[in-house]
């Protein structure tokens, strides 16, 4: 089921930008929120590759900037936030952060499908699902809007929904799990190339959760999508993702193939995150909560490692110099001074993750 991405596409080749790349590529992205306390960076200098055929898990605590990052991929950072540097390049489209008006609108929904949390109400409560699908088709200039209903019906059936009933339903007539699947239908019905799932399992019971993830995985493989799953749930990542990207305070601190990151976590934050998960078969006290408080925008240090305040291994250098991104294995990189020891291979490019 799982596809391992080719190494060359991700790390250290130096040819990454010129080689044929299919998917969404984020480079040097910085997002700043203008607040009364000044300009605060919610996301800083992020590099990320979402390659077609790969499921990427974007992991982090709440407040780690992962949702802001996801919205930035659609050039939809909510005010007072704005993108101050970097690019989001979609193969065949160009830099999405430069798109405006109609061109941007067509990319949203047309190329990039965004799926809301199940707990969120992403549908107009006053219109039937089918009518809203027609609105979507008309907005994107589909020549025969009605044809989209057939496609939506097929997708619904795929996801185990009673298509006729769902299309003639209002949002309040659907359960959380059904709403989420309908959200996926909306994201895919126009043949999007990138699928962004925001906390896909929040507010879902275990059964619906498994069913939704299963369907996403299948359609992902069939259509060779570039899929990104934003979550704070390591279990979801372990089950779904080919690659994991760990974010902390708006920086990417570690990235790599799922198995590598889970088994040989290189960053102290990733390790702490993994230790904090309770196991079903085991003592609950074996799970260690992460010490300290999750970062908030105002308290993120601007110089040095963002995790040092909660890091059990912090060194004096951590508060003085930004940790460089270093490779700790094939396709596996981390931004930590400790990893940059004599055993680690220094990164040639400024890429943090890929």
């Amino acid at each position, binding site marked *: 089921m799982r596809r391992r991405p080719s190494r060359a596409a991700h790390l250290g080749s130096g040819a990454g930008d010129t080689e044929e790349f299919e998917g969404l590529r984020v480079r040097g992205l910085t997002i700043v929120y203008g607040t009364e306390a000044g300009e605060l960076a919610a996301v800083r200098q992020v590099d990320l590759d979402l390659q077609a055929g790969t499921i990427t898990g974007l992991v982090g605590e709440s407040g780690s900037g992962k949702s802001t990052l996801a*919205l930035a991929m*659609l050039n*939809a950072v*909510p005010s007072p936030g704005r993108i101050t540097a970097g690019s989001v390049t979609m193969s065949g489209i160009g830099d999405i952060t430069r798109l405006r008006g109609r061109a*941007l*609108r*067509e*990319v*949203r*929904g*047309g190329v990039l499908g*965004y799926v*809301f949390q199940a707990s*969120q*109400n*992403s*549908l*107009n*409560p*006053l*219109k*039937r699902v089918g009518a809203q699908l027609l*609105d*979507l088709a*008309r*907005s*994107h200039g589909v020549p025969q809007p009605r044809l989209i209903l057939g496609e939506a019906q097929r997708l619904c059936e795929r*996801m*185990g*929904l*009673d298509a*006729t*009933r769902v299309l003639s339903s*209002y*949002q*309040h*007539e*659907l*359960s*959380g*799990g*059904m709403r989420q699947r309908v*959200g996926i239908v*909306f*994201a895919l019905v126009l043949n999007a190339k990138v699928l962004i799932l925001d906390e896909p399992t929040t507010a*879902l*019971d275990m*059964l*619906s959760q498994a*069913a939704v993830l299963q369907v996403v995985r299948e359609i992902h493989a069939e259509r060779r999508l570039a899929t990104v799953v934003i979550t704070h749930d390591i279990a979801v990542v372990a089950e779904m993702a080919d690659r994991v990207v760990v974010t902390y305070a708006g920086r990417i601190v570690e990235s790599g193939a799922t198995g590598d990151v889970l088994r040989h976590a290189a960053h102290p934050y990733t390790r702490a995150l993994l230790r904090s998960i309770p196991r079903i078969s085991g003592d609950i006290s074996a799970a260690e909560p992460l010490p300290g408080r999750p970062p908030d925008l105002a308290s993120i240090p601007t110089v040095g490692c963002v995790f040092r305040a909660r890091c059990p291994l912090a060194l004096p250098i951590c508060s003085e110099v930004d940790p460089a991104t270093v490779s700790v294995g094939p396709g596996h990189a981390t931004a930590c001074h400790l990893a940059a020891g004599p055993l680690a291979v220094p990164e040639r490019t400024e890429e943090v993750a890929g």
Partner: protein
Amino acid sequence: MVPASPPIAAQSTGRGAGARRRRLKGVARRLGARIVAALVMIWAVATLTFFLVHALPGNPVQVQYETLISHGVPPAQALKETRIIYGFVSHEPVVSQYGSYLWQLIHLNLGKSISYSGVSVSHLVLSAAPWTVILVLSGVLVSFLLGVLAGAVAAVRRTSKLGDLLSVSGSLLHGIPQFVMAVLLAYVFTTLLPVFPFGAPYNITVTPGWNLGYIGSLVTHAVLPVFAYALSSYGGWMLSMKSSVVSVLGDDFVLAAELRGLKPLTQLRYVARNALLPLFTVLALSIGFMFGGSIFIEDVFDYPGLGHLLLASISARDYPLMSGTFLLITVAVILSNLLADLLYTLIDPRVRGQAS
């Protein structure tokens, strides 16, 4: 709420066509219950009106009877005339008085006016109603349209100068009492700049009927009172619409519509329809309250509407006319409330769902 999703297979067992029939049935049952409730409310208010008039100090019914006696009317004749006026006489026990009052009411007989002697209350009310409808209905609609548009713009542009300006205009106009607005408009546009005629609903030199002169005269005479009404209720609509739009703009589905790349016009329609929803009930209610007339505006502009009639009946202690007017207002409010409810069932699918 539908419970959290059961395993997939269970969900796909559809409700199909039966669901629609059941939904319709639910609507019908709901409608029936509402109509019964409305009738009960009207009966309750009529009863209250009866006992209030009955409990008024000086017992107007008794006073009427005794006035007739003192004018030398024979007792039998006096009794009969009093009964015509009030629908009941105080010589009978209260229960039978109440019974005959209700009986008259069922036959839409509101009794006869005292101050306009011999004229039936229904006739007076019916001839005053059109003036009020012209004045207040246009006022409500004009203020609703202006207020809703301005409120929507103020909400969308709430961080800009234009938004601030609109919000201030709303609060300011909301704060000016109706009669001040009426006097102000009358002074500015009939005295300072005599663009509009003052007083009387139409020029007495034209003949009422379907001719241009009459209709033109009606319109020019109505402009000031309608705008006095519209301006004084604009602020309320504007501020409600603004807060409604602001709250809808924060809903998830608005962001979802944007992220799905819906056309700006489609997005606007989504927001507008959801934001207007809570205002519809208020609109229907204010159309109901319309039958209370607008006492101040009708008074300032000498408009012979229901407000005028109510004011006259109070100052003349014309109890049958008073209770008749009150009853009309009540019925209108109850009916418009009923209408609002039904309308809501039509435009909000979530309410429809609750019926089944």
